[in-house]
């Protein structure tokens, strides 16, 4: 290709100045970007208004595509299914046998639970969901793991609310726009969820690893009691997530916990439910707590 002519301004003073200004503005743009980046790294919420406005404008594109996503997925799953039909069948038959036993156990536990709750006078039942929405997109080329859902402030969605699917926890709302919201997925490296083992009270933190898995870190260090296949559910600590929502299954044991796979893989999730914050008072208290210790010595 021929060398570009645009840089050869010759003796034309005006053209020379034009080229010079172009470089100047480009350099200025880079500096401006660095300044913006510093601000948004130090205070991530600064530009959330700008972002939610933009995502509200672009959300209809994503919503249109999301409807087709699960359709095409099940199509490919159906093809893949033919190749593994035999072994899968045997595996599933085994699983069903075990599951029947577990189901009976669960029914018993539920009955006992209801009885104990009645003794305590607690209100049972799941909280009413705030909104039902589609998962319409994710930041698939960035190192951060955000998702976008098709419900926003107009549907009652507020930042901090947990987002779940029938398979388990998906993440929590980070920024709510008018008709779309940005969700911090569990696999983001900034996401941290207090969890416990479904069968007993082994408590841990589930951190995102940004490669699709979670890292479970035990709170009580010592002998690692986690075994492969242990299911972890939210513990309710912190007040954000309702206890008992399934989160992950341990697949690989590490020194201080385990590597776990998500139970509700967002890639296979279409419709999600936005739930209210479980204990708003507790979350408020925790959020307000940092200034308090400073005031405490005087009190």
């Amino acid at each position: 290709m021929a060398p570009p002519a645009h840089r050869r301004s010759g003796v034309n003073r005006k053209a020379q100045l034009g080229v010079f200004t172009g470089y100047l503005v480009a350099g200025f743009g880079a500096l401006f970007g660095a300044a913006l980046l510093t601000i948004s790294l130090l205070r991530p919420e600064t530009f959330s208004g700008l972002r939610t406005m933009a995502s509200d404008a672009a959300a209809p594109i994503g919503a249109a595509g999301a409807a087709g996503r699960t359709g095409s997925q099940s199509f490919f799953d159906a093809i893949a299914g033919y190749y593994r039909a035999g072994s899968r069948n045997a595996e599933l038959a085994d699983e069903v046998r075990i599951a029947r036993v577990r189901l009976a156990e669960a029914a018993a536990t539920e009955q006992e639970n209801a009885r104990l709750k009645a003794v305590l006078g607690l209100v049972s039942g799941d909280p009413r969901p705030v909104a039902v929405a589609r998962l319409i997109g994710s930041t698939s080329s960035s190192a951060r793991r955000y998702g976008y859902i098709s419900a926003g402030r107009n549907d009652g969605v507020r930042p901090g609310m947990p987002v779940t699917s029938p398979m388990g926890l998906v993440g929590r709302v980070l920024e709510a726009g008018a008709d779309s919201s940005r969700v911090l997925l569990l696999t983001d490296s900034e996401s941290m969820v207090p969890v416990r083992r479904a069968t007993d009270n082994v408590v841990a933190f589930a951190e995102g690893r940004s490669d699709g898995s979670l890292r479970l870190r035990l709170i009580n260090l010592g002998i690692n009691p986690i075994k492969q296949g242990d299911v972890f559910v939210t513990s309710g600590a912190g007040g954000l997530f309702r206890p008992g929502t399934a989160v992950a299954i341990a697949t690989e044991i590490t020194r201080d916990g385990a590597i776990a796979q998500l139970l509700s893989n967002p890639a296979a999730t279409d419709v999600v439910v936005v739930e209210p914050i479980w204990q708003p008072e507790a979350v408020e208290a925790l959020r307000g707590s940092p200034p308090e210790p400073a005031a405490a010595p005087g009190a």
Partner: protein
Amino acid sequence: MEQLNPQSRRDPYGSRINRRESVLLAYGLPWATIMLGSLTPWLPVIAPAPVMPPFGFLLVLAWRLLRPGLLPPWAGLPLGLFDDLFSGQPLGSGVLLFSIALIVIELIDIRFPWRNFWLDWLTASCIVVPYLVLASLLSGAALTLVQLGVIAPQVVLTLVLFPLISRMVAVLDRFRLMRVRRID
């Protein structure tokens, strides 16, 4: 003449008589396609890890390398800002990295005025790999070795995809210069 050959007054860009290129199309199409590329987070792909190539950035590179001078050196500011609104990166990382990339290409242009496809691919590779690494470093996520390992498939996919993207941009470039406006 037309009875002998109906194509005699046409070329690949359309009729040569009474038609001109549209200014809006000729200058707006690169910007429009790049912005469309920046909208990839709205594709119905919910990725558990960063797998998709940064289409917005790839299109900037492809347009800039195909048509030097079409994108002004300061184009990184608005295009990067638009990319940041959707990409999930902290606002400003796109502005910074797009601007630096365009300045670097200007410098490469001065060194190598005559370029071919292979040099373009090499240039794009030398820019896109640092872009992906820097973008993940600047993403504000906790830095671990896992993090850097995760972007390896993305880097490979991006490098392999660049020729395809630049081919697509070449087709778009032909469409950009179509004579669609009637002169009265």
